[in-house]
């Protein structure tokens, strides 16, 4: 696969068939894509309105992007402008309470889960799905991280102080989650997939209203449920690793339903955002040599200093992002480069760029 053939763009209602295909191949309850044509169409209509809306952001915006490879849709990713929008967004916050008895000379650190609304209003990354054939390529990076460039580019549409993403928690093949069985199901008498369906994926406020109102003492739960807290479903490994490398932290919040980790960060702490810059599009001096460089990109790195970058440009409705080789110290993007052409850029336009490869995180030794 040639990474320069990838193109990320806003989804529109005309993409219904592609989205249906993607939803059908995603695991139920994961990726927040319902297996329901009407709901998917609604989602696309809402996405189109969100991209088009000129009004001051209301928080109801729900953006959806599609990733194409040579014109074929291979994945999607989304952003909800404000978690919980006008409602509440529920999470469980990990806390440790120290219980002590002087008389018994005992001090005990108890792990508790507190139902909270901390992330209400945060920007929420949603709906990540990539065709399994592309998992080992650079495509997932583009699909996930282009959202960060979008948020950076249109920062006034995202007033949330924090950015968060819910990661799928552990569940078996039938969708049964040990945490749900030990907690949620005791209050709802319905299976996890049913509860997801009833609560309509995104709006969990309805169900969370019924949850226990006091801290859950983790030590009182069955061992299997205890172990599932903060655990990631294997299908979430890829999107999780991308966000983890960005600088998201996963220790504080878990999902109220399946206890999967909800990762959070401040936008300006994220590696892509910190390393991003905005370049003008203009022919470089020695343009001819550059052109050759760009064409060589079809086979691989053009020179030692050329590195893969995420590139994003355009107003909201025609936002585009792709991958391209660029000298890390370049002051401009050549309009004849493959990336500029893929993005439809001309001299005088501006493009946001960020290096694909992020500096190694401190403490990320487990990656080898």
């Amino acid at each position, binding site marked *: 696969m040639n990474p320069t053939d990838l193109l990320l763009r806003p989804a529109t209602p005309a993409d219904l068939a592609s989205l249906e295909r993607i939803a059908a191949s995603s695991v139920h309850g994961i990726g927040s894509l319902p297996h329901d044509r009407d709901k998917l169409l609604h989602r696309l209509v809402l996405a189109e309105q969100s991209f088009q809306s000129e009004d001051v952001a209301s928080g109801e915006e729900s953006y959806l992007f599609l990733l194409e490879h040579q014109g074929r849709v291979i994945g999607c990713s989304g952003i909800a402008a404000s978690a919980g929008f006008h409602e509440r967004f529920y999470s469980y916050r990990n806390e440790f309470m120290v219980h002590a008895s002087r008389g*018994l000379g005992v001090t*005990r650190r108890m792990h508790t889960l507190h139902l909270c609304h901390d992330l209400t209003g945060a920007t929420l990354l949603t709906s990540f799905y990539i065709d399994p054939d592309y998992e080992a390529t650079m495509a997932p990076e583009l699909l996930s991280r282009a959202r960060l460039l979008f948020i950076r580019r249109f920062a006034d549409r995202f007033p949330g102080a924090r950015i968060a993403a819910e990661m799928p928690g552990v569940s078996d093949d039938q969708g049964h989650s040990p945490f749900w069985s030990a907690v949620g199901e005791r*209050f709802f008498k319905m299976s996890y997939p049913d509860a997801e369906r009833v609560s309509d994926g995104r709006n969990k406020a309805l169900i969370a209203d019924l949850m226990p*109102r006091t801290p859950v003492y983790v030590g009182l739960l069955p061992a299997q449920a205890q172990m599932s807290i903060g655990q990631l479903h294997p299908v979430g490994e890829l999107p999780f690793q991308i966000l983890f490398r960005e600088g998201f932290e996963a220790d504080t919040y878990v999902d109220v339903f399946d206890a999967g980790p909800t990762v959070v960060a401040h936008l300006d702490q994220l590696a892509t955002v910190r390393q991003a810059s905005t370049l003008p599009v203009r022919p470089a001096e020695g343009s001819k040599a550059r052109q050759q460089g760009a064409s060589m990109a079809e086979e691989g790195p053009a020179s030692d200093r050329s590195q893969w970058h995420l590139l994003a440009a355009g107003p909201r409705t025609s936002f585009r992002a792709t991958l391209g080789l660029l000298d890390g110290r370049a002051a401009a993007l050549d309009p004849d480069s493959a990336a500029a052409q893929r993005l439809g850029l001309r001299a005088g336009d501006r493009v946001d760029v960020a290096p694909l490869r992020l500096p190694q995180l401190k403490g990320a030794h487990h990656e080898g």
Partner: protein
Amino acid sequence: MKVERVEAPEQLPPAWREAMATWVNALGEPLRLSWAPGQTLFVLEQDGHLLACARLVAPIDENRALQDGDGPSAGLAASDELRFHFHVGKLVHLCDELRLFSPQQILLLGNDLCDATEIADLAVDPLAHEGALKLRLLLTAVVKAHEGRSRLYADLQGHRDTDGLSPFWRGLGARFLPVQGSQPGVGARWRRNFAELLPALPLYVSLMDDASRACIGRIGPAAQCAREALQAAGFRAGAYVKIDDAGPTWEL
């Protein structure tokens, strides 16, 4: 048979003291042979032979609660008498849109019975014929003597499984105090200290394991006889259970 009052431990005849030392009370615990002023031991005796006993522990009053610890009752005073119970209550979680009506049982730690008089060390001679009847005679006399004063209650031992262990302790208490092992501790003072380790906010019974839940308000073998006697004397199970094994509190 007649009922007598023993106001102070020193007034206890040696034979009774010896008998009491071998009995267990309705909690399945050994009896206390010394007690603080303000507590009274009621005994049922026949021809000088001890048949049953019950010790009344008056509510803590402000004076005793704030008493300095150097009086004759030092070490036995008020703070040890502070009693903790779980109030067994309900919270209804309601959602019109989902047409869900979900009543939830909750346990709330508190000192709700601090203004009531406790009948402690409720016990009967294990060899006595028709023990429950004798205990009832004693209780009736206690109730009569106490008439017009604060309400009365008695704690009963909670359910034990076939191994003699408390599933409620295993499911709740042991998670907060693992060093205690498979059996809850003994005595009011221990329970008072243990209470400090429990959550101050309501605990949802739904989140506990099935065996623990089934224990709430269920009595254990040591409480059988006392329960019969309490029932016959007009007492009823109230809304409180013990914090260690969820044995019920019977009130009048």
